[in-house]
């Protein structure tokens, strides 16, 4: 199991001086928290979800930390662009093209990671809800089956099979829906990135070359 002790809590990665490093530390925290939640859900038996719910709630902190780190990073970059004459901090690269490129790419990367983490969390929470909603009926059916030593009447077996099929369908539907939402969110991020990086249209200058001669 991942050892995430000491890394939880909003802004754990934000104490650092460098906003870029802060951003990546915060991402690491969020990743670790997500992994912990996944492991808790995977290893715990159906029904032991209070633990999973508390870990899921704990994931909110690192998520907020990532958002904060992204905000710090964006603010620092804005400051640099707003004050072109300002001296760069010791150890940091001078303002210019490198900073601009980093800002252009790091924020969308962070955004994409947030989108993916968000969907991942939503998927695991959805799974918990599905198991919770089917748990009582499944336990009842399995209990009855055990009581009659596997010789339950046909009708009870059909009910059990129907219940299990519903559970399987819901799990599959959830995975498909979350994947579709992820695809939609990433696609809109992709479009906005392409729009932001689009070169200005130079076709106008072509027209200006033609002048009527009087």
């Amino acid at each position, binding site marked *: 199991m991942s050892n995430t002790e000491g890394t939880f809590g909003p802004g754990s990665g934000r104490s650092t001086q460098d906003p870029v490093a802060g951003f990546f530390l915060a991402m690491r925290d969020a990743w670790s928290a997500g992994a912990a939640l996944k492991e808790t859900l995977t290893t715990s038996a159906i029904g032991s979800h209070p633990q999973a719910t508390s870990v899921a709630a704990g994931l909110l902190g690192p998520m907020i930390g990532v958002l904060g780190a992204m905000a710090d990073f964006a603010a620092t970059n804005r400051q640099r662009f707003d004050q072109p004459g300002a001296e760069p901090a010791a150890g940091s690269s001078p303002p210019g093209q490198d900073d601009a490129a980093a800002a252009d790419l790091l924020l969308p990367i962070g955004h994409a990671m947030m989108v993916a983490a968000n969907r991942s969390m939503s998927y695991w929470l959805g799974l918990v809800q599905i198991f919770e909603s089917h748990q009582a009926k499944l336990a009842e059916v399995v209990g009855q089956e055990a009581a009659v030593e596997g010789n339950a009447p046909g009708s009870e077996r059909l*009910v059990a099979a129907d219940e299990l099929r519903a559970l399987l369908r819901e799990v599959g539907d959830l995975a498909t*829906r979350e994947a579709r939402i992820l695809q939609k969110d990433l696609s809109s991020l992709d479009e906005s990135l392409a729009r932001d990086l689009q070169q200005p249209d130079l076709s106008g200058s072509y027209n200006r070359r033609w002048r009527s001669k009087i």
Partner: protein
Amino acid sequence: MQEQSTQSVIARLGFDSEMTQLRERIARWVAGCSEELREALEWQFLMGSKYFRPLTIFSCYRAANQGPIPEQIMQSALVIELFHNVSLIIDDIVDRSPTRRGRATMHTKFGELSALMTSGYIVAEGYLQLKDDLTGIALFSELLKRLGVAECLQWRLRRQPLGVEDWRKIAGEDTGSMFEVCACLGDRSGQLRTFGGLLGLLYHGCDDVGDVKGLAALGGGGEEDLRDGILTLPAALAIRDPAAAKIFCDTEGGDLTELGRYFVAKLPEAENYLDKIAEEGRIEARSFAVNPAPLIALIEQTRQLSRY
């Protein structure tokens, strides 16, 4: 009452003028058809429809786009109404239904041969109306194929002790495929396909429950399904009880009144199940529509169908 309610949703979503246009197009189309079949077509098309499928197409367009409804979408709405009527004509023949919405069915009034030939004529006309809309042609082909398969599947699986998941599969291919295609015709991106499927499933389930309640709200009773051992939502829940399953699976017909009582006892459970499907539909609408309001209005309207 049901028709009034659909009208109010049309007005609320601002599709009055589109619906008027659609009615006029259908009337013009009927007027231009072969004289030999015109009386039958007038009987079928000019007797007042709820236009819920065209409304679904318009709403799905509106959920993804702004501005007036374009020609291609209007054309799709006309063709879905044509194909929907083909499915009604065939259903009525298969179910041996003498009436629909209080009037004689086409085969009762004009004979089976006329009804079958007219439905073939309508399909051919539908494809002609689509002109160069290749996506539309592919979607309507998918619809006809799936409806055919669903009808055969439903018939083959009659009188069998199946479950709610089986009902979901059959209903998803039957009414579900119709509304899936409506959603795809409206938004043209495929994003609302699952929403359409859920709307169709909800419609089918509400129809099943409404039938058991003995209501004519959706244009038909439930006697045929009960008699033929068709797996409806209340049936799938009721036959979990071995006593109900025994009557349901009886090839001689069994005591249908007694079976009906089992179905009625399961109505609250069926209503709860429909609430779950409606919620799934709302989640889909919120997750994938730019403007989910028209889609949620469709869900609410459909959910009411079993409550009259």
